[in-house]
């Protein structure tokens, strides 16, 4: 279906995304002290949106087919539709009841199998971590499963002479890495501004067929390797954090008086020493 010459295969980029509750909307129920999840609006996990934007930038620069992949309930269609409306070419949702409760090991396994099923990929992009679980383990986990090179915490990618050149942010500086394709990179949160859905993109979504649902059986995922019971880790319990009470001394009045009172207190409490 590509118009390119048959020997020039188009780059295929698979972007893994997750749908998460909007972080700033999360609130603790004052009565039950648990997190209120019902009715909280969802979004594409923000670092994944940066990964998608990077993929779309590469598509703009080099031409590419961008396939978005997610794993979760069918309510995730909302985020996949948005991804297509932003410019992704198509999307796949791995959705199956038996996947429920999977931790990062089965998740990385199931996504890897689905990526293999999609096939023909050159580059896999994931967000650096999710805002709801914040482990950052799934991206490197996929690379481990698929035995691919990995470059994590990437802010930009250039494709030079058929190789990936990635700019990685370490704690103490910026690293520039090169690797052959196929490869997997995880993308830094906030490294770019994800584009808005376009009208053309929205029309493509409306026409339908942009989201394909796949079950574990469709992909050939071993049911004995996924789900809550086959996850190495379990959440045994969750405690609400009770922070130690703090003095909470508030100083007010004119700036000069308030600051003087504050500094005197800080010195008396030996927080600062004059």
């Amino acid at each position, binding site marked *: 279906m590509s118009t390119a010459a048959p020997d020039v295969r188009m780059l295929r980029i698979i972007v893994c995304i997750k749908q998460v509750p909007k972080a700033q909307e999360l609130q603790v129920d004052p009565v039950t002290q648990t997190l209120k999840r019902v009715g909280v609006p969802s979004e594409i996990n923000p670092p994944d949106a940066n990964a998608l934007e990077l993929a779309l930038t590469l598509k703009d620069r080099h031409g590419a087919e961008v396939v978005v992949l997610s794993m979760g309930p069918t309510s995730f269609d909302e985020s996949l539709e948005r991804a297509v409306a932003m410019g992704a070419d198509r999307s796949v949702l791995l959705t199956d009841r038996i996947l429920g409760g999977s931790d990062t090991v089965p998740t990385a396994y199931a996504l890897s199998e689905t990526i293999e099923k999609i096939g023909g990929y050159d580059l896999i992009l994931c967000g650096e971590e999710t805002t709801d679980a914040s482990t950052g383990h799934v991206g490197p*986990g996929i690379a*481990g499963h698929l035995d691919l090179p990995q470059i994590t915490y990437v802010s930009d990618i250039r494709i030079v002479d058929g190789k990936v050149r990635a700019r990685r942010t370490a704690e103490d500086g*910026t690293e*520039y890495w090169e690797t052959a394709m196929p490869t997997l990179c995880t993308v830094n949160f906030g490294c770019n501004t994800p584009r808005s859905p376009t009208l053309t993109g929205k029309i493509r979504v409306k026409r339908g067929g942009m989201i394909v649902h796949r079950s574990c059986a469709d992909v050939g995922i071993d049911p004995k390797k996924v789900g809550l019971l086959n996850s190495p880790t379990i959440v045994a319990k969750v405690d609400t954090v009770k922070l130690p009470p703090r003095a909470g001394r508030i100083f007010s009045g004119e700036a000069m008086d308030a600051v003087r009172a504050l500094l005197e207190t800080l010195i008396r409490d030996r927080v600062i020493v004059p």
Partner: protein
Amino acid sequence: MTDGHGLEDKSHFRGVWVFLEQRAGRLRDVSTQLIGEGRRLADARGTSLTGILPGHQVDGLAEYAVGYGLDRVIVVDNSLLDFYRSRPYAEAMSQLIRRHKPEIVLFGASKNGRDLGGRLHAMLETGLAADCVKFDIDAEGNLDMIRPSFGGKSLAHILCKKHRPQMASVRRNVFVAPPHLAEWKGEIVHETVELSPKDVDTTLLDFQEFTKEGGLRPEEADIVVGGGYGLADPKNFAMLQELADRLGGAVAASRKAVDSGWVPKMLQVGQTGMTVRPKLYIAVGISGAVQHLAGMQESEKILVINIDPKAPLFDIADYGIVGDLFEIVPEMIRQLDALKAGGAARPAVPAEAR
């Protein structure tokens, strides 16, 4: 990893391991901090504590690391492990883990530690809990891995009951490094792993170190001045730097200030940034999203300066001023200068005395 043994038979997995991360010939702080916690866990389990040091020509570092309380260090000296690269390090660690079968492996939650742990846990098919803040041993002898969830609003207890090793990562500054005792006795063991140049599948083309403009990094400072969206303009961070300079501190920022492009991401405190636990955290114009709290709520004292008396950060403040930061901060600088005339305002305990 179950290794062909029955899932319930975990007795042949023994020992606590700490991955010793080195960069440019130095041990990462987080690794020395983990040795202290690893010691406690090894003692609680009645087993030994081993540091794992992949690298090249790192014997000196291994001998030094012992002084933090290790029973032994396994050194894997290989030129392919000269500096951190994902596949060679993951290959080396997986071979060692399959060979020795430790029950617990701890990693620093640094960029490289997470890169390594994430790849490794999928290779070994075992549990890995990220960003743990506390560990316990449960009644069955499992490692209770306690980590914040939802930006610090709750703490989740993660167990890895059937698989071994139980792996966890910990951010820098969550634990305090134990004192270094030169007389502590530990064994240095050299081991080899199967690696070939083919395992080096990524090439480091260049490295540009961040320039240390303000000198101190927030993670190392006794006093941290954090700026938020209330600063309204990137120029105003200069004012925070002036305040930090007067206190011997460092400047940091909230995610909103970073997202606005005012300051570099490396200064971001919070869930997707760094964790700080200074003696005094001064929050200027930061309302206090849970994600920010996650990165600073362990500070010894918290001072909040905000014009909005309802800013959530006031709930965890030791001290606060409700007012216009553009009046308060310059006034603090002025009065600190005045105090300095009669004696410098410094942190209660100078960094070099700790």
